[in-house]
């Protein structure tokens, strides 16, 4: 009997240690305040480029809005994923319903660490796993630009998630596996400047990998198949392979890629479709140099075969 008691005690202790360890490991971490201070107050004019590269309006503008309406960041777009439905929040300058009261530090912590001002984990449907690779100075510029945008009232609906995905604290453990600021593709010294600039735009603010890279069972990006294309996170269909591997865009020249991002036309004059339509509209607002950099990077990365299963044969 005493032996059994001892065993039970040991198990309880272990379980207790596990809970404490899990709690500690899942704790939100914040950006070093000195890093944020060093980034300075930011420049709104430069921030507009980051806003477009980051595609903020694609999810946070009122669904269906156009032109100036795209700058009214009321949120409300619902992303129906296997984990549940995520709803993009209001990130306008409204004090109560938006992020008007956020400090630059608050904003940097959300962008780079996925942590809210109250210290809670944000869901990675907000692609901070990519934004974590951004330069703090660009985040400061973006903050300055967003402060020039209108305050619009109206809180978006909350997320609708099932257990265990509704436990925010659990995201802390997930972040330990999938959140980091290192680049995905290592580039040797002497890599041409446009490729390096393109890597930053694609892997950081552009967050291309969030849709174009397949995810593993835990919802983390499978970086071994970086940009190889993936089943669409929402509904049917696929997101194309944008490497030069089989099924990808190996036959596209850099000019073809840049032209696609500018005009929406593929080399054989098919057009952009699906969720990429909004992305392409944002890419069209970038400079030709930025689009060329993205193209140069995509031609330089390792080729992979399609990251999604082949199409089912016709049933008729």
């Amino acid at each position, binding site marked *: 009997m005493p032996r059994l008691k001892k065993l039970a005690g040991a198990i309880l202790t272990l379980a207790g240690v596990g809970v404490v360890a899990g709690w500690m490991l899942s704790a939100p971490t914040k950006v070093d305040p000195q890093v944020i201070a060093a980034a300075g107050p930011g420049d709104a004019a430069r921030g507009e480029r980051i806003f477009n590269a980051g595609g903020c309006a694609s999810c946070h503008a009122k669904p269906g809005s156009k032109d100036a309406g795209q700058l009214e960041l009321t949120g409300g777009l619902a992303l129906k994923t296997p984990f549940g439905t995520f709803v993009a929040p209001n990130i306008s300058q409204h004090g109560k319903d938006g992020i008007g009261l956020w400090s630059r530090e608050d904003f940097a912590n959300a962008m780079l660490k996925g942590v809210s001002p109250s210290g809670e984990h944000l869901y990675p449907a907000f692609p901070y796993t990519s934004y974590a690779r951004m330069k703090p100075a660009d985040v400061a510029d973006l903050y300055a630009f967003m402060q020039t945008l209108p305050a619009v009232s109206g809180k978006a609906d909350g997320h609708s998630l099932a257990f265990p995905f509704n436990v925010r604290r659990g995201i802390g453990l997930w972040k330990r596996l999938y959140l980091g600021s290192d680049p995905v593709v290592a580039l040797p010294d002497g890599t041409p400047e446009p490729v390096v600039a393109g890597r930053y735009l694609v892997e950081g603010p552009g967050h291309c990998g969030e849709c174009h890279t397949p995810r593993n069972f835990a919802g983390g990006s499978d970086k071994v198949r970086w940009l190889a294309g993936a089943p669409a996170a929402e509904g*049917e269909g696929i997101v194309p392979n944008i490497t030069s591997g089989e099924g990808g865009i190996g036959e596209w020249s850099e000019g073809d890629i840049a032209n696609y991002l500018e005009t929406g036309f593929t080399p054989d004059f098919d057009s952009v*479709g699906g969720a990429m339509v909004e992305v392409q509209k944002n890419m069209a607002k970038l400079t030709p140099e930025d689009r060329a950099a993205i193209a140069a990077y995509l031609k330089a990365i390792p080729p992979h075969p399609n990251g999604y299963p082949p199409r089912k044969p016709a049933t*008729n």
Partner: protein
Amino acid sequence: MRKLIFAISMLTLAVSAASADPVLDRLQMMKERGKIVGELAKMVKGEQAFDAATVDTALKALQVNAEKFDADALFPAGSTDGDTTASPKIWEDMAGFKATEDKYLADVKAAAAAAPADVDALKAQIGVLGSNCSTCHQTYRIKKG
């Protein structure tokens, strides 16, 4: 008489060809569309010198292609199998689908009537036409592998 029979047989052939496989028919129609736009884009991109007559011919061909578009014949209910990327949303919202196509037809007609006189005018027209392509493909097409 022989001529009449010939005409009738051609007509039935055309009708049967058009209804044999709506999926193939609509694919072909879209490919033709892309090809014509591709010809025009060569001038916009500066790969080919601007030529008003060529532009006129191409825009008129685009109009003929757009006028041929018959949503009921090309997208009959249940034509969702085979080599198609049509989204179920087409049938859920046939009126909305037809409206995007109608807008495209109106824009093509306007472009053909405007007869762009220089490359900048052509570029503007192609931009308008292209926005129709992406608007429709945003909602009514599903990218498949």
